[in-house]
């Protein structure tokens, strides 16, 4: 284990991660949400591209063993495993509009118990790296499921994740990983639990290479992202 960090519920964090690391994210309470953005550390204009990730792997959600792909066709990370077979990729991330029904609170009034949306948290982390609104792409919401019906309707599944649910990502290139544990935008209560992030050397993993030709090609492109 190289680094272990518990991100409190409703907080945001960012970390630079070398290629070949495993990020194990574990929900420390029920109904967790982790809104995730990925940027290439050496070239932050190359960002996680959710539509390209979904269409290349014919999926409307994120699940193992999919590869998370960038704007420029690089495999950024592999979802190497998860106790859950659905992570939302269609609903963006919460904004102040979604937190307001539970009462937006100020630092002056409640100090560090203030409620911060995922967007505010992700923007705060982006700004530390000289990035801003222009760099905010579609996110993935780990631990959340928004079910689809066959006419395209969407409904969040409450209680989709339980304490102890987990997902592992393998970094395929050096990444800037930005995350918020604020609520999913369709959450109906304010009760975001913390999420533990453990970073270690990743074991070899062939699951994505064997999953689909598209996933294998994204890993090939990652290996030659910088020649």
């Amino acid at each position, binding site marked *: 284990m190289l680094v272990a960090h518990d991100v409190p519920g409703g907080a945001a964090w960012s970390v630079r991660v070398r290629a070949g690391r495993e990020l194990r994210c574990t929900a420390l309470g029920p109904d967790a949400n982790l809104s995730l953005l990925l940027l290439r550390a050496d070239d932050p204009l190359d960002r996680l*591209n959710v*539509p390209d990730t979904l*269409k*290349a792997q014919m999926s*409307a959600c994120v699940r193992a063993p999919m590869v998370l792909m960038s704007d420029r066709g*690089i495999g950024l990370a592999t979802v190497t495993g998860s106790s859950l077979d659905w992570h939302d990729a*269609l609903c963006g991330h919460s904004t102040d509009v979604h937190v307001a029904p539970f009462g937006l609170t100020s630092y002056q009034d409640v100090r560090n118990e203030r409620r911060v949306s995922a967007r505010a948290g992700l923007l705060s982390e982006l700004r530390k790296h000289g990035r801003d609104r222009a760099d905010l792409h579609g996110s993935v919401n780990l631990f959340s499921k928004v079910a689809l019906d066959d006419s*395209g309707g969407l409904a969040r599944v409450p209680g989709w994740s339980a304490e102890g649910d987990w997902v592992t990502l393998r970094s395929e290139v050096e990444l800037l990983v930005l995350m918020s544990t604020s609520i999913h935008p369709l959450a109906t209560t304010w009760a975001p639990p913390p999420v533990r992030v453990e970073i270690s050397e990743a074991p070899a993993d062939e699951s994505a290479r064997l999953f689909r030709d598209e996933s294998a090609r994204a890993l090939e*492109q990652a290996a030659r992202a910088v020649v």
Partner: protein
Amino acid sequence: MTVVPAGEGFVGLVRAGGTVRIIDLEGNQAADTLLYDAHDLDNRYSAFDTIREQRSAYLTTGSQLLSTELDVLMTLTADTVGRHDTIGGACSQESNVLRYGEHTRHMHACRETFLRTGAQVGIGARQLTHNINFFMNVPVTSDGGLSFADGLSSPGQYVELTAERDVFVLISNCPQLNNPCNGWNPTPIQVVVREPA
């Protein structure tokens, strides 16, 4: 009124209260479309905010096309097709390589058109985002599946969008040859911008 051949782009200002009509002249042709607040380019179309707030994966008449700040940029006020995609994103040379293999790397793709055309109004790589695919059919299913299916539009079908503020409309008329989104034969579209009444 502008005819946009396949593989070409369009960018135009639609003033608040004005409209843009996009016509699929020969049918089954994807029109990849991005929208920007003309006075704040970072307040741009957001596919996932739009999908979430309308609780539907598809766009159709009545869909409010939201920005990252949750402002309504445009409303889809007419649609003779019935359903359009905003999950599938645009094609790029790089995503073609992932989807179809290295031999497609040098085939023309929407992302190049977005960048070349967007540059006229200051839209660069940082400002590109997840787009709308008018006339494209990308069904999703309750088990989490997604596919690129044959288009639903026939010659002369159109969408019309009404601007709720001053908006730049950036279009790439998709040159994709590797899947059925253009019926394996990319064809021209027509774009008609009307000033507010």
